[in-house]
C-alpha cells in the first residue's frame, strides 16, 4: 500500500506517495536521487547511511520512509551552502578525514548531530558519537581530528 507522506528534505518541503515497505535509504537514493547517502552494510551495522531526522542521527537503511511523515530530514547534500563546504566538510577535507569517501557522508552527518548537541566535544565524546560508523580506510585518527577541527573552527567563528 502507498500513502501520501509529507517531508522536509534539506529545507525543501516535499510530498510523495510512499509504499509502506519502502526504506528511507531507498526513498532518498532512488526516488529523490540524493545518492550522497550511502548504502553500506544495509543492515544497521556500518553507519554509512546516517542522516539527520529532526536533528538527530538515524540510520536510513533500517528506517521505514512512511514512518517519517512530517519529519525534517537532512542529508549530506544539504550541508554545504551556496557552493561552499560546511565547516565539517571542510575540516574532513583539510585534515584528510576522507580517503575512499564511502563512509564520509555518514561520518559527517553523525558528527553534525553531535556538534549541534555538544559544540565542544572531547575525543571520548567524538568516539562515542561515531561508534556506530565504520571506516575501512583511515583508521579513525584523522576522522576524530577532523571533527575536533570543525568544532574549534566553529568556536572561533562564533
Amino acid at each position: 500500500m502507498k500513502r501520501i507522506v509529507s517531508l522536509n528534505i534539506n529545507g525543501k518541503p516535499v510530498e510523495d506517495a510512499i509504499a509502506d515497505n519502502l526504506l528511507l535509504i531507498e526513498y532518498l537514493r532512488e526516488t529523490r536521487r540524493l545518492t550522497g547517502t550511502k548504502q553500506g552494510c544495509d543492515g544497521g551495522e556500518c553507519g554509512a547511511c546516517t542522516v539527520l531526522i529532526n536533528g538527530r542521527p538515524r540510520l536510513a537503511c533500517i528506517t521505514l520512509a512512511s514512518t517519517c511523515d512530517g519529519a525534517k530530514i537532512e542529508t549530506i547534500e544539504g550541508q554545504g551552502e551556496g557552493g561552499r563546504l560546511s565547516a565539517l566538510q571542510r575540516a574532513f577535507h583539510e585534515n584528510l578525514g576522507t580517503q575512499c569517501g564511502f563512509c564520509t557522508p555518514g561520518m559527517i552527518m553523525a558528527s553534525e548531530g553531535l556538534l549541534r548537541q555538544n559544540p565542544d566535544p572531547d575525543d571520548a565524546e567524538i568516539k562515542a558519537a561515531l561508534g556506530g560508523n565504520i571506516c575501512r580506510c583511515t583508521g579513525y585518527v584523522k576522522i576524530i581530528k577532523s571533527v575536533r577541527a570543525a568544532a574549534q573552527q566553529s568556536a572561533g567563528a562564533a
Partner: protein
Amino acid sequence: MSANLPEFNLVKPSSIAEALAAFRDQPHAKFCAGGTDLIPNMRHGLFEVETLIDLGQIVGFDAVTINGADIELGAGISLSKLVGRADIRERFPAIVKACEKVAGLSHREAATLGGNLCLETRCLYYNQSEWWRKSNDYCLKYQGDICHVAPRGNRCRAAFCGDLAPAFMVHRAEVELVSLNGARRLPLADLYVEDGAAHLALQPGEILASVHLPAARARSTYGKICQRGAIDFPQAGVAVSCRKEAGVLQFELAFTGTNSKPILLEYREPLGPKTDADSYFEALEKQVQKSVSPQRTTTTAPHYRRLAVAALAVRLARGLV
C-alpha cells in the same frame, strides 16, 4: 541482505486502544516500535508479515510518570531519552550504563525500551541469510526440525541478548502488559520463558505498555563482554545491584546473552564487616558459573563465556562495595 523489504501493510495507530483493535482485525500482524532489530530481521527473511503495527506514533507511549517515589516509563521511550534523564542516572545507574552499551548512538535514537525488553533471541544458526539457513536445513526456531546448537534437545537454545532486561531486573522492575482483555502487571523476570523460539510470556495481541521502577534505592552497574565496543550484542552481560540491609550488603545479579531468557540471581549471602571478602567473592563467582548456561549460539566458546561473565560479575560487585 535482500535489497527490498517484502510487501506489507503498515498500520499507524495513535493510541494503545487503536493498536489492540488493529491486532484484533489482523491477528497475524506484528508490533513494531523503533524497528532497529525487527527491520534487519525482516530483511534477512527471518519472518514474514502481512501487517506491521507501528507503535511509534502512539501519543504518550514515551511518557515518564512520577508517582511519588515510583517511576513509570512508557515502553516507547527511546534509549537516548532514557540516557538523558538525570533521575534515572542518579537512582538506577545500571539502566543508564546498559542503555549506553546498546548498539550505536543512531540506533539508540530510534530503539525503544519496550523493543529492547522484547528483543528477539539470537543464534549463530538463526541470524543468517536465507541461503545460509536453507543450506543448513533451517533450525528449530524457523522452519527446521532440529536445534543445531543442541541437536539432541527438544527446544531452541537461541540466546536472549537484550542489554536492558538485566539492569531493570536488579532494580526489581515490573512491567505492565495490556490487551483487549485488560491489563496485568508482573515482575520483569516473569516476562521471560527459557525457550529461544518463544521466549516471551506475552499473549497474542498483548503489548508491553510500561515499566515500573520502585522507590527502593540500590547501587548498581552493568557490564558486557562483546567483540566490538559499539554495535554489538553481548556475548554475555551482567547487571549487579547492591543493597545495605541491617548493616550487611546483599547482591542481586542478572545475566543476558547466556540463556534463552535473562537470568536473575538473588544472592542472599550477606557481606558484613567481618566477612572474608576474598572467600565471599570466590563463592559468588562459583554461584554465577552454576547459574548461567551459555550455549554454542555465538562464535565465542560457551565455557569461556561462562568463566568470563562470572569474573565480570565479581569485578562489578567488588566495585559496588
